[in-house]
């Protein structure tokens, strides 16, 4: 299989060995099936061990796996009748964000997501999934359209961040993100957000203020990338692994902290190992969310989002005011 990761090495070695034996059997016509069976049993054990105790940094690697399914991969498996819609009507069409209309289990939805490429060529076209303001404004346009026609919005988050470029600043990157946050806060249709890969900072949150926010087991979501955190905290981006351990960015951590609503399990070893199966896991979670949210009135949906975010934060009070002489 392509792109095995460092932490998978014990499993990879066994997989290679099994493949080798099998081809040897085919070539020479010698029966080694007992040996193969023995190794396959051991592989199952090793896989359990390797994938059962993944560190945050291991998960970051899986989230960045070149073969990891993207928004468009999931769209093709989760929805029918998808029609991609382009442009923000103000400046241009940012291909780092895709969006459109589709049906989910026969019902109309609007679906929006960050879109990165799987190879250099596509990544250049998609700007590595790092949006400009026009990407966020396209997303907002489609959300408001969904609101007008009363269909739920599904957002798939997968970005290393909003693009830090000159033109992005000139066209108001800050305002584009900020506007989306307040507009999502007031959206009168169900809004379900799922982090499918990387979720870095305001660039992710800009399509992430949902009624429900779910995360794939091996995705990450953070105020800043592990590399960025390491650079700021310890002046050394090489300490990204340490940042990943410290910052609580994985789905299990954020689930425990109550930041996300649900951790969607991943196929053992990562979504890329069985995309179809992974799409089924997502489909199940999405169906549950939409069922639940479709019971709510417009006012309830907005109030639900308010209550959800209002609760997030950690602080205490002291009895006396301080500092003022």
């Amino acid at each position, binding site marked *: 299989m392509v792109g095995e990761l460092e932490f998978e090495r014990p499993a990879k070695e066994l997989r290679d060995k099994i493949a080798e034996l099998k081809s040897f059997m085919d070539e020479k016509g010698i029966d080694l099936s007992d040996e193969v069976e023995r190794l396959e049993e051991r592989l199952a054990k090793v896989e359990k061990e390797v994938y059962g105790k993944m560190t945050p940094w291991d998960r970051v690697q899986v989230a960045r796996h070149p073969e990891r399914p993207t928004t468009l991969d999931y769209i093709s498996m989760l929805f029918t009748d998808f029609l991609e819609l382009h442009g923000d009507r103000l400046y241009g069409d940012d291909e780092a964000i895709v969006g459109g209309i589709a049906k989910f289990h026969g019902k109309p939805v609007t679906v929006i997501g960050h879109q990165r490429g799987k190879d250099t060529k596509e990544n250049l076209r998609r700007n590595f999934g790092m949006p400009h303001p026009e990407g966020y404004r396209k997303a907002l346009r489609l959300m408001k359209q969904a609101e007008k026609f009363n269909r739920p919005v599904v957002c798939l988050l997968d970005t290393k961040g*909003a*693009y*830090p*470029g*000159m033109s*992005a*600043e*000139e*066209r*108001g*990157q*800050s*305002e584009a*993100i*900020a*506007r989306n*946050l*307040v507009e*999502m*806060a*007031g959206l009168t249709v169900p809004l379900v957000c799922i982090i499918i890969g990387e979720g870095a*900072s*305001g660039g992710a*949150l*800009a399509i*992430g*203020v949902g009624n429900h926010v779910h995360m794939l087991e091996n995705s990450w*979501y*953070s*105020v*800043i990338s592990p590399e960025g*955190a390491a650079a*700021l*905290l310890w002046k050394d981006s090489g300490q990204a692994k340490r940042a990943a351990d*410290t*910052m*609580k*960015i994985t789905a299990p951590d*954020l689930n425990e*902290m109550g*930041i996300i609503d649900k951790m969607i399990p991943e196929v053992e070893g990562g979504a890329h190992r069985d995309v179809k199966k992974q799409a089924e896991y997502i489909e199940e979670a999405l169906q549950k969310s939409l069922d639940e949210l479709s019971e709510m009135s417009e006012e309830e949906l*907005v109030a639900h*989002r*308010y209550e959800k*975010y*209002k609760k*997030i*934060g*950690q*602080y*205490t*009070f*002291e*009895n*006396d*005011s*301080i*500092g*003022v*002489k």
Partner: protein
Amino acid sequence: MLKDLFAKKRKYATIPSDRMKQEVPEGLMTKCPECKSIMTTKELNKAHKVCVSCDHHFRMTAQERIQLIIDQGTFREINQDMKTENPLDFPDYLDRIDKDRAKTGMNEAVMTGHGEVEGNPIVFAVMDAHFRMGSMGSVVGEKITRAIEAATEERKPFIIFTASGGARMQEGILSLMQMAKTSVALRRHHEAGLLFISVMTHPTTGGVSASFASVGDYNFAEPKALIGFAGRRIIEQTIRQELPEDFQTAEFLLKHGQLDAVVHRKKMKATLANVLDIHKGGEE
């Protein structure tokens, strides 16, 4: 009566504090970092910390800002007893917070409260970059949210003076979520048809720039204030070219349609009062 009590308690709103002296390390004389001219500290303070030769706007503390903008005796602080926690167990984090509390006389990087601007009642928040670079963690997000909620409840305008390097790293995802929290509160304030004015001061960047700071009904900024989403160095590394000198200044944003106006500090109070007055409906 009650007003007097509060006014008395907050002496810093009327007399220069120890802190103000600290801000001007040379003591009696101050050198402008822009034009290098030397002026007396008294002169500088009298000019609201604007260089008398070149108009350079020195950084202000929250207390100084309040003194400049809010009518004397009307300031009533809220949530000054909220305390920072250490959700990710970063060593030294709370020590640093304590140091900045002692240094600034504030419980966190924003001061919030009720007050009046030329007789117009408002709820406001003033961020202070002297406290952990004005970065936003749980307490900053919560204090701003509660101030917005108070404004919504009392049907008052909300004004914020921003000064922030962005989200607070040490509180991780909780800091990011403060962007969403302040936004849901602003949405309610907006739905109630109420006025929100954002005044961006130096510096307003990252997660603060990319949330409440940029979505005022009116977006103002002080001259030359640094305002932007991504840091200059990161952008230069990304695009591999040098950026223009005025990049991400208030004037740059004005030129690119991101601001309603760049307002000189000496005109700030009058400008805010003008907007507040027009929003009263003009019955006078």
